[in-house]
């Protein structure tokens, strides 16, 4: 192999890449947060047994789960654009991952809701709580406890999917910054190797902090 590694330019642009990493964390975290909120509603809609609620929820979930995440981002970026709704690459990426996260999480939450005994709801209602209060204070916390491990996996997925922004022209997240630098310097291997290391660290950081959060929130 007569390839000359050149790490110096990579080290010089490390601060830029770290800013990109921060952007990646922001996108992945936001998409996860929004996705979780949407997924709770989707799961509840699917459980409601009313067709006008469960049918749209079903369509959302099945589309999210049966098409590539990149396709969903394209749909927002190019598809909505053709309707005259110009969506930037950041928004398309964020909304696309949120859509995907919500679909996958909704399916997880459905299982989680099924794991909370019906008696809990009845007990809460007979103590005088309203339907919303019961969900918020009794059912949802227990449901989240049941699905927390699956949520951690989805969190990592969220990080991995956030790399797709570069394909619709995002230049500010970790992959985007790396690609920009790559285009200028052509040190593809070096830059993407460092990006891979940073992604690994981000994934691990999310997994680890999720464990800490789980320990703090869900201990009896």
């Amino acid at each position, binding site marked *: *192999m007569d*390839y000359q590694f050149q790490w110096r330019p990579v080290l010089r642009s490390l601060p830029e890449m770290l800013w990109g990493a921060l952007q990646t964390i922001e996108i992945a975290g936001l998409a996860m947060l929004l996705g979780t909120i949407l997924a709770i509603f989707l799961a509840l809609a699917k459980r409601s047994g009313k067709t006008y609620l469960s049918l749209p929820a079903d369509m959302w979930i*099945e*589309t999210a*789960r*049966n*098409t*590539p*995440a*990149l*396709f969903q981002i*394209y*749909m927002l970026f*190019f*598809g909505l*654009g*053709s*309707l005259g709704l110009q969506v930037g690459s950041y928004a398309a990426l964020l909304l696309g991952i949120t859509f995907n996260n919500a679909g996958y999480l909704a399916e997880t939450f459905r299982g989680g809701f099924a794991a909370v005994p019906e008696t809990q709801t009845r007990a809460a209602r007979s103590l005088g709580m309203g339907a919303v209060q019961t969900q918020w204070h009794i059912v949802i916390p227990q449901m989240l406890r049941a699905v927390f491990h699956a949520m951690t996996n989805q969190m*990592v997925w969220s*990080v*991995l*999917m*956030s*790399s*797709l922004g*570069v*394909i619709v022209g995002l230049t500010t997240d970790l*992959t985007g910054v790396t690609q920009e630098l790559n285009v200028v310097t052509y040190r*593809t*291997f070096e830059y*993407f*190797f460092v*990006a*891979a290391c940073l*992604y*690994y660290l981000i*994934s*691990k950081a999310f997994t680890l902090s999720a464990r800490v959060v789980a320990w703090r929130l869900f201990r009896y």
Partner: protein
Amino acid sequence: MYFGGSFSWGDFLFLLSGAVTTLSITLLAVVIGTVLGVLFGLVRASAPGWIGNSLGAVLDVFRSVPLLIQLVLFNSFNSMLKLNWPTFTVGCICLGIYASAFCTEIVRSGVDAVPQTTRRAARSLGLSWRQELTSITLPIATRVVFPSWIGLTLGVMKDTALVLWIGIVELLRSSQIVTSRVQEPLLILGITGLIYFVMSFPIARLGNQLEKKWGTQ
């Protein structure tokens, strides 16, 4: 001169040829991933702790780094080492290794799901280690993890969309090519999505049904 046009039958056939590329990459990647995954999974489940754990840690890297980055790295490896493999091969191998990282954990969980007592009983009946593995553990484990394996296959199929980044014209890329001529992104993306859905949904349903049917026993 008018170069544009409406969506024609030829465009649809072009999309379908993209879908065929998607399916062939999926097939090859899943074959590579399953063969490696079964091998690594057995090592993970039965080799001494430190070997299994270090293999697990290495494979974990493939699950924690975006596939896009892996593809770019693998592609640049290809040119650095002057292997001159076609991008199709690069895509298949990269996806295959990626799939093997997931398949390893699936196989391991399957082997772990076989009760120790069953395995010991088989050995006490005089089966050798290999016989016990091939006629007791693997059949039971296969049944347990088959639904997850279907899930993995579908996941790989959806991840093949990313190989467009290294220049392979698969379904999603061919939809873009058609769009650049027909200029109706929503329609063509809609059709593309439908093709993906048709390829994925029935198999996903089958997986769910098998999971329900086998899970209750």
